[in-house]
């Protein structure tokens, strides 16, 4: 707007002026909008970070476990040759504790003293004796796992400076632990039990190996069934199926199944596999079957996408030199689509590994101590183990739950990384 125009009569305002007038405001709105978008992403990433920090922060200490050193005298009076496997090893632990703390008198004090050591200590002594009976009659120093309350104290999860009634360890127990610390008879070590044991009611004896083996068996069944069936279904729908009502129905069905809540598959498994066919409860076989039905749609959809990305010229070339349709698919299209199918399958497997809800329905939530040895042994799986531990009131289980989650996440990341590597390596642009 220049001076000349504004002098005299009121000049009609030009459109460009209106535009200029509003420009600053519009640019501000633009920047604001952009900021909203960035904030949204940052909030999402922040949530991810908080999640990881809280899990790792809660759980990294579970990879260590507190052990106490006992000077065990393998008393020949307690252990004679005939009852080595059934002898009173708990008594052995107790008597050794008494000799370590000779000043402790009175039943309730003694009981408090015994509570410092995990019941696993007795099992450990038993194992030692059974492996090498010659140690009977000798003095051996043994590191046995401490009770979970002691463990929590050593890791700083319990505060020692609150009133006695509001903590899980009494003043006397604290004093004994202090004494042990001074003597160097208490220390933290790598928690091997956590990776080698099955479930237990005692946090210090509980491990994820049983659940990991259960997961392995269930996923094995899932992989063996869902990959061939999924690929076969995708090949039929993509290469052979005529376009008619029936194949339309199948397509709609597959897309819907991919979005059905997983718990509904659990109901199906319960009603069909357990009640109708009478398969055993809590078995990885049934878990694998349910997970198969659940992952099939994912695999079929991914495999179809992989088949679609193979250019028609390959098919025409094969048909042109006289291959039958089946030969064309098996010899030429499938090998080219296979990496894509495998990628989809790995991603489906990763989802199956993390799935919990349908497995709750078919009884895989049972408390199972033994390591499953086959497809029909009762077992649980990693995510269900996490769910079970998360329900336990002990503080030590919170730690172990987080640690189990970390292990599960590591497996998931490995699988996803494998999928990404596979995709990068074999991805072809036609």
């Amino acid at each position, binding site marked *: 707007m220049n001076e000349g125009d504004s002098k005299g009569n009121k000049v009609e305002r030009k459109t460009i002026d209106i535009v200029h007038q509003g420009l600053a405001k519009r640019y501000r*709105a633009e920047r604001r909008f952009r900021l909203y978008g960035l904030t949204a992403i940052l909030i*999402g990433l922040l949530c991810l970070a908080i999640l990881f920090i809280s899990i790792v922060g809660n759980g990294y200490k579970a990879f260590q476990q507190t052990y106490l050193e006992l000077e065990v005298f393998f008393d020949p009076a307690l252990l004679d040759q005939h009852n080595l496997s059934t002898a009173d090893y708990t008594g052995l632990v107790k008597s050794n504790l008494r000799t370590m703390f000779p000043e402790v008198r009175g039943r309730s004090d003694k009981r408090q003293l015994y509570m410092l050591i995990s019941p696993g200590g007795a099992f450990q002594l038993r194992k030692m004796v059974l492996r090498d009976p010659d140690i009977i009659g000798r003095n051996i120093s043994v590191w046995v796992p401490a009770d979970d309350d002691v463990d929590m104290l050593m890791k700083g999860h319990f505060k020692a400076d609150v009133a006695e009634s509001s903590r899980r360890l009494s003043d006397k127990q604290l004093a004994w632990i202090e004494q042990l610390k001074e003597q160097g008879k208490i220390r933290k070590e790598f928690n091997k039990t956590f990776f080698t044991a099955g479930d237990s009611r005692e946090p210090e004896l509980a491990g994820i190996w049983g659940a990991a083996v259960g997961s392995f068996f269930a996923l094995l069944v899932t992989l063996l069934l869902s990959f061939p069936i999924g690929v076969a279904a995708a090949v039929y729908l993509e290469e052979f199926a005529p376009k008619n009502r029936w194949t339309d129905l199948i397509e709609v069905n597959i897309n819907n199944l991919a979005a*059905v*809540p997983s718990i509904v598959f659990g109901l199906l498994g319960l009603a069909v596999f357990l009640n109708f066919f009478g398969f055993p409860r809590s078995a990885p076989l049934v878990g694998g079957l349910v997970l198969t039905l659940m992952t099939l749609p994912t695999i079929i959809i991914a495999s179809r996408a992989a088949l679609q990305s193979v250019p028609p010229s390959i098919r025409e070339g094969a048909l042109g030199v006289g291959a039958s349709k089946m030969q064309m698919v098996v010899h030429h299209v499938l090998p080219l689509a296979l990496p894509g199918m495998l990628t989809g399958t790995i991603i489906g497997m990763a989802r199956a590994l993390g799935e919990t*809800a349908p497995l709750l329905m078919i009884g895989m*939530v049972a408390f199972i101590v033994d390591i499953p040895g086959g497809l029909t042994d009762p077992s649980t799986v990693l995510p269900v183990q996490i769910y079970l531990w*998360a329900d336990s009131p002990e503080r030590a289980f919170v730690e172990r739950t987080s640690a189990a989650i970390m292990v599960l996440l590591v497996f998931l990341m490995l699988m996803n990384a494998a999928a990404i590597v596979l995709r990068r390596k074999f991805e072809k642009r036609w």
Partner: protein
Amino acid sequence: MSPATILTALLILSSAAYYLGRRRAFAVASKRGGIRYLHSRPTYYGALTALWCGIPALLLFGLWFGLEDKIITNLVVADLPQAIRGLPDNRLNLVVNDIKNLVSGNIVAGEVTATIQAAAEHYRNLKTTSNAALAVGMLSLGIVGTVVVRSRISSTLRARNLVEQLVKYLLIACSCLAILTTIGIVLSVLYESLRFFEAVSITDFLFGLEWSPQMAIRADQVGSSGAFGVIPVFSGTLLISAIAMLVAVPIGLMSAIYLAEYANKKFRDVAKPLLEILAGIPAVVYGFFAAITVAPFVRNVGSTLGFDVSSESALAAGLVMGVMIIPFVSSLSDDVINAVPQALRDGAYSLGATRSETIKQVVLPAALPGIVGSILLAVSRAIGETMIVVMAAGLSANLTLNPFKTVTTVTVQIVTLLIGDQEFDSPKTLAAFALGLVLFIVTLFLNVIALKVVRRYREQYE
């Protein structure tokens, strides 16, 4: 013989059949003067023999595996003394369970009488007989198939066409499994639900305002009358889902817009996979996070602000569920926004619109159907989500819209009703299937609409 051994034996047998068939084909060909006088290549004759050896035996195996338990149980029950057979159905089931537990070496609930012991022995014997019969049946079927096909091999046998035909039938069977699964879901859920509706009227279920699934064990028990009104359960589900969507839709949509329209390639390559990690984390992890970290946090913040927040508030579960659904909304909307033709944007720019104006007034309206579809899919996801609410939401069915209160959801109720020891004729457990039916119908409805909307939208711009 265990099933695994039988299957391995069958595998070995059909590989043998393959070689037998192939050798036979070579033999036939050499009589005529070389394999070019055969209709198909020799491997096809081998494959045909192997298929006819394996498939019938496998079908028998599947049939046997499915029905064996039923038949054996019925046989064992038929041989039990009259006194036990005369028991009502649920008591009889307990006895049968005891017998089965005894056979598999588990701990037995009831006392082990001599009759039960004998029945278990009987069961074990029948099982061994059945396994042996299965092995004999399968292997002889395999051998018969091999012999018959092998004897038919001639230079004019159209082996390739026959093999391809068979393989095609196999492919069709595999793709029909999806339909079978759907039918299985509908039938199993519907069947148990119908039994439930025999005990509880369908109007009481759908419109009842109270949910307390207790059934009396004795008639004079306190609180003996259970209430099966689904409204409070469903309102809880909707409340938590609504909170989740309030978190997920703005954040997911805005990040999709930023990623699709503003972000440079570098930022996009980093941020998008990171956001998608959120989708790959198992629900049970979110549930633990909600129960251990978020719920106490929400309660503390609430109590400092002077609200009365329950420790299992709907808010905590909803927030975490929202975080889980963010990548779902964002990646679906990202696809949708990217599918809007560039020409529409260029048109808006040429008229002088800023980027945000273009997005708000051109891109979003054009992408709206697709975005609505993806939000509907996300809602169906939220309604069906189980583990987060099982671990972080409550059990008591309160009819409330207060996000600080404890509410329960359909999935939580299904899980709590079905975990643990169940009797399959009490309305309490059957109620879980009725809830499952409601859940299935609602999510199916949402999915069908969403998929239809998305599909139509895609066709529009293709």
